[in-house]
């Protein structure tokens, strides 16, 4: 058993070194571009980053010796990459981002410390679900809610501003994993065929309809198609894995599309988003500006990109944005612009590797809750990446979801580190039991 532990963490340690080097090289590239001279400051940043990662690594070595060795280096790689990109956009934003990265690691450590026996979550699943819904609706509460670009995604409590949807996605997955673990049998057994379609038993349909209703509610109240899609897709993924009934997914999808179509034609903000997606050239200087500039930035990148720090973000000589929201929504377009199709493929590959490791954890875990929780967390993470990258590449309507670990934004980084902590907790137990 000892024999397994050491290699896992050693592999993690080895994997962290190239990540720190990459960060140094990235900062060096941005420095070289901006100052035309190469200071050793890039190495200092790289060293700090490596130190923080090593501390986390030592913590993992002590607390979760058997956890998946690749997840943390992969996430560190994304974070390092995000830091360089955000630094390249605005130095002061990168400082915030670095602070959030540290804060995220603190919450990561706390999660591992207090939720070592994560089954405890099952006991509070309705509380957690309630908290998740409350978080979702918080932006509409008078006094603390904030509207950003027509969507209600932000909350401001005194000096603390955050995006609750990032946290509520974890709550929702925890609840669904727990609920489906308990009810999956009856959902399968009680299912009956009506007109050739397998329907879930009516009695258990209720809670599922509640989730659907919650997603629709989000469309109406939060007015954000992206997070709504992300939540519902995660739900369908879990439902499919729990029951093995593809027909449930089809029914769910149909319901979602029906609801989305209905609200898209009645809620103006959602309607606009869909219109822009279909006809971006209708208002190239107005509503269509962001998506068009996002695509133009990608066209400018080509195969190899223009290089770090070489792409235009603002119109030269002005502060007018050429690529709006470059540090958040459209950061992927900036990556394509500067690092080209190859750089973008590398980023997507990292997300894919994280998803692969996440699903691997789900495969290894041997109790239903762990399996479903790992699946749900991985799915919601992968779908979030898909929703925003798909948005800026015009696969789906563009909405304001962050690109996990890369986009500028505290809530996103912190929440995703909590998500990572949960995955590692599941992984540690699963691998220990597998080895035992």
């Amino acid at each position, binding site marked *: 058993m000892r024999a397994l532990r050491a290699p896992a963490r050693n592999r993690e340690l080895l994997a962290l070194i190239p990540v720190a080097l990459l960060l140094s090289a990235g900062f060096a590239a941005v420095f070289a571009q901006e100052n035309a001279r190469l200071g050793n400051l890039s190495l200092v940043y790289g060293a700090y980053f490596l130190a923080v990662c090593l501390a986390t690594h030592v913590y993992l070595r002590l607390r979760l010796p058997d956890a998946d060795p690749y997840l943390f280096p992969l996430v560190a790689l994304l974070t390092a990459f995000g830091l360089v990109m955000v630094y390249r956009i605005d130095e002061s934003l990168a400082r915030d981002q670095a602070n959030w990265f540290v804060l995220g690691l603190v919450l990561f450590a706390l999660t591992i410390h207090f939720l070592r026996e994560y089954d405890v979550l099952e006991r509070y699943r309705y509380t957690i679900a309630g908290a998740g819904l409350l978080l979702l609706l918080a932006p509409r509460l008078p006094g603390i809610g904030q509207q950003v670009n027509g969507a209600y995604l932000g909350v401001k409590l005194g000096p603390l501003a955050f995006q609750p949807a990032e946290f509520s996605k974890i709550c929702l997955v925890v609840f669904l994993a727990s609920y489906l673990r308990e009810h999956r049998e009856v959902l399968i057994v009680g299912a009956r065929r009506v007109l050739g379609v397998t329907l879930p038993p009516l009695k258990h349909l209720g809670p599922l309809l509640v989730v659907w209703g919650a997603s629709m509610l989000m469309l109406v109240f939060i007015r954000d198609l992206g997070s709504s899609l992300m939540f519902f897709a995660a739900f369908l993924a879990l439902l499919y894995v729990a029951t093995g009934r593809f027909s449930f997914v089809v029914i769910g999808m149909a319901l979602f599309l029906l609801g989305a179509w209905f609200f898209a034609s009645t809620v103006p903000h959602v309607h606009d988003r869909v219109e822009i997606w279909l006809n971006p050239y209708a208002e190239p*200087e107005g509503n269509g500006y962001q998506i068009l500039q996002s695509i133009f930035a990608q066209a400018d990148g080509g195969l190899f990109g223009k290089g770090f720090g070489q792409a235009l973000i603002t119109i030269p000589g002005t502060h007018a944005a050429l690529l709006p929201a470059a540090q958040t929504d459209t950061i992927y377009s900036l990556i394509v612009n500067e690092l080209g199709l190859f750089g973008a493929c590398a980023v997507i590959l990292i*997300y894919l590797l994280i998803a692969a490791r996440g699903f691997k954890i789900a495969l290894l875990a041997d109790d239903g809750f762990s399996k479903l929780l790992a699946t749900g967390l991985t799915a919601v993470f992968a779908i979030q990446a898909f929703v925003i990258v798909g948005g800026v590449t*015009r*696969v789906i309507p563009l909405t304001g979801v962050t690109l996990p670990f890369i986009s500028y934004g505290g809530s996103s980084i912190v929440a995703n580190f909590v998500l990572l902590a949960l995955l590692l907790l599941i992984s540690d137990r699963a691998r220990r039991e597998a080895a035992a």
Partner: protein
Amino acid sequence: MNRQIVRLFAFVVALFAVLIGFTSYWAVFDAKSLKGKEANARPLLEQQQIKRGRILAADGTVLAKSVAKGHGAGLRYVRRYPQGSLYGHPIGYSFVRQSDSEFEKFHNDELVGEESEFGSILEQLAGHNQEGDDIVTNLDPAAQQAAMSSLQEQGFGAVVAIDPSSGRVKALASNPPYDPNRIPYELEKLNANELETPLLDRATQGLWPPGSTFKVVTAAAGLDSGLITPETAFAAPSPLQVETRPLENDFNESFPPISLDTALTNSVNTWFAQLGQKLGEGTLFEYMDRFGFNSTPAIDLPSGQVYKSGVYEGNELLGPGDPVDIARVAMGQERLEVTPLQMAEVAAAVANRGRLMKPQIWSRVIDPDGRVVKRLDPSEYSQPIGARTAEELTTAMEGVVSEGTGTNAAIPGVAVAGKTGTAETPGNESCGGGEAENQAWFIGFAPAQDPQVAIAATVECTERFGNDAAAPIFRAVAEQILKDEGS
């Protein structure tokens, strides 16, 4: 549940593959069309960030340069023309929003440092920003100034001065001028000015009847084809019935049998009309082609801004098979329309013993490190006439200036060969009505036996004749260039 998890992962892989597919489409496959979209300002903004090379006169005077504005990512370059309106033609302009014209447009690739694809990738890897090459022109600032000043004294029109032995363009001026520095603010206004058309480079785009200057081409065809010799004499009665309409000499004067010298010196219309009839359409058109008529002159300006000279029916050029009054073409009338550049080429070909050199404004291209990357290698466009014909013509053209219709072109102590022309353009709308409807011309070269410069000068919408309006321009420019050559 494991099977479902694996399938779910496969689904995620498919989703991400879609992302890569779309990214590839925008970044690579559709990139070219996206860069051409009107809503896409990036190509223009990036062009702005290239330091465009300078354009210099032969003596190093800066005609165009790029000045930096802003810094860092906001850095961009704007074009400045320190000489103002003096070189608006033929240098043109280059601005991001207003596009480019003339020399700036023709030499754009060198000025922005556009190299081979491979070279530019290497440059980018080495971290060099793209920077344009400088171009030194053949333009002589003193000659250009003399050309513009004398033009402005005489009226709207154009002058082209060429070194006949190399084709180097020493001066090229068009009046009214425009100041390229004002283009970003006034392009629409300048375009809308249809009365003065200041953006029209009259030297290369002005099409006017050449009048008697064309008799040089007719004489060249007659001599070179062997149809006549300098001694061949025939009578030139006035009026002469040509194509059922009478054709008259100046003052309706009839001449007894005379030879080429006398006919050219006194610009005898009916003599050249008869020569044209004897030559016939085939031969005259063939010699016109040899001199470069009916083709776009091989000067280094955009082909859209250099017009062909020839016999026009509307916008169509007529050829030997078409019904034309060849006698009137031979004396520079009919529907013949020519540019000053074309007439300067005629003078230059005669001056260079019958060999027509390609007219070129550029002289050498210098990269940002000061290395000469390219140097003009003068090349021959054609050999329209033999050296002997050129000599005989030169003698006749000397008579024009020393004792004929072009005495105002004479320069003390220098033998000048030339030919005047005055084409009546009744009803020319661009002259805005009134009496001033002559197109005054002078073409020639000097010194006659060792030509340093060949010039065509023309003034539009004037009451005066070639000798009064155009010959003084020739003289001012030629004197200035000979002075520069001598010093």
